[in-house]
């Protein structure tokens, strides 16, 4: 484990130094990340120009959900987002080299082309979070603080697991990298809004199949002190760590199977 962390640190550090060499490009790319996430929020603000409540939630309440989901995706994207690019490594054969190095392949895949510019999304989410906490009225208790902070951590872990699964999937389906976008960026877009606007089947899907509702929805309901509109068990609001553990175990298993099944393209 210590070795894995050190490996990640060494590889990611090299990529960070590389990125910082081209300072203008780096600044531009961070700004781009900030603007992209800001545009999502701008769309919500424009919608609120026509409404007072969206799916029964006020703008500050939605901002809280938005920020929790954005932070989780941003952190996961920073840490393991490059598993998306595994397909290219498989195609050009350089995944083989990773398998013979003395650092676990998952660490190498995650740190490969480590893109420090992705702090842009995290920064923007934290800015929205600050605004949301400033404007929304929450009856703060220790429990609420723990659930909020815990959910942001667990949410990042859940998105990490999805990224790793997406990477593993590419061992079986070469250039189908975009499928994982549907769950990562798609999941992020879906959870930016209160789930009350979706049909029940969809809400059950993001609860029991791909548990992205645990990134922000259930813990968010607890923090905002809102009764679950779908009447699912109230302990779900504390279950984000359970969902995270279950999904990490599943992702780890899938990753192992993928690496074991991997056949080099070399002749």
């Amino acid at each position: 484990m210590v070795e894995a962390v050190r490996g990640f640190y060494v590889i990611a550090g090299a990529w960070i130094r590389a990125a910082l060499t081209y300072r203008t490009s780096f600044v531009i790319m961070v700004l781009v990340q900030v603007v992209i996430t800001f545009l999502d929020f701008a769309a919500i603000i424009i919608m609120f120009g026509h409404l007072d409540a969206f799916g029964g939630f006020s703008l500050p309440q939605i901002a809280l959900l938005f920020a929790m989901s954005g932070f989780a995706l941003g952190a996961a994207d920073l840490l393991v987002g490059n598993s998306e690019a595994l397909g290219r490594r498989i195609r050009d054969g350089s995944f083989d080299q990773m398998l013979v190095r003395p650092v676990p392949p998952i660490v190498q895949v995650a740190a490969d082309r480590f893109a420090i510019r992705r702090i842009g999304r995290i920064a923007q989410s934290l800015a929205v979070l600050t605004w949301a906490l400033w404007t929304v009225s929450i009856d703060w208790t220790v429990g609420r603080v723990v659930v909020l902070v815990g959910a942001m951590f667990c949410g990042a872990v859940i998105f990490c697991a999805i990224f790793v699964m997406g990477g593993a999937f590419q061992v079986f389906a070469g250039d189908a990298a975009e499928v994982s976008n549907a769950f990562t960026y798609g999941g992020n877009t879906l959870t930016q809004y209160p789930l009350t606007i979706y049909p029940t089947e969809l809400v059950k899907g993001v609860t029991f199949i791909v548990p992205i509702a645990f990134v922000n929805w259930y813990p968010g309901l607890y923090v905002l002190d809102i009764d679950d509109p779908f009447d699912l068990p109230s302990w779900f609001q504390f279950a984000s760590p359970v969902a995270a553990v279950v999904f990490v175990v599943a992702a780890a298993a899938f990753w192992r199977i993928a690496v074991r099944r991997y056949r080099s393209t070399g002749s």
Partner: protein
Amino acid sequence: MYAALAVRGFRRYATYRAATLAGAFTNTVFGVVIAYTYIALWEVRPSLGGYDIDQAVTFAWIAQALIAPVAIFGGFVVDELVERIRTGAAAIDLHRPVSLLGLRLAEDLGRGAYHLLARGVIPTVVGALLFDLVWPDRITTWVLAALSILMAIVVSFGLRYLLGLLAYWIIDIQGPHWIVILSQLFFSGMMLPLVVFPDWLRLIADLLPFRCLIQIPIDVFLSDSTGTNAAPLLGVQLLWIVILLSAGAALTRIAVRKVVVQGG
């Protein structure tokens, strides 16, 4: 000759079948999510911006179908031009018996046709199965909508071609590329139909070429039920095509004069 190039462009992208399916799947997932956000908005404000709920949902799905053909996320043509300029292969393009702009346009039309079929049809069919979509009533509207989508691809090409040519002057075009992508996302109607924008923002969007990519083709598609007059919209697209392509042609001439091939 240009027809042959277009066919090559079509076939070139048709090779990547898994990638296409994956992309269509992602477009479909986003279609579902965005359709429900529009439903939530239009349920509170029926007839917002002149659309009813079904028209708004249709907007969400057609926009997903158009992402790939009109290359909202840039890339195509831009990346190739930049790479060829960087490696010097651009010099070979100048020997060819076709104009650089014509060659790239023909190829890109082939790509656009493929993306429209492969990445447009699947989301549209799924959208039609899950929701009540609004279809044009008259054959002429279908024809005009097809024409408008074709012009949207040409406008998008014009923007990307100019971007690619920039590489003759600045080496790293990532900054300008992203400015165009972000504008294409926001001012095209992709993130939110422009009819929902506040007046001042709508005015900015109307003065920019980006609405030719998403908002205009969809407004033409919906024109039977919304009562919009399609002709002026097609006129706007044509105007931008003339502006962008003549700028592209002029800039090509200047760039050709500037080019110095290394090792020559």
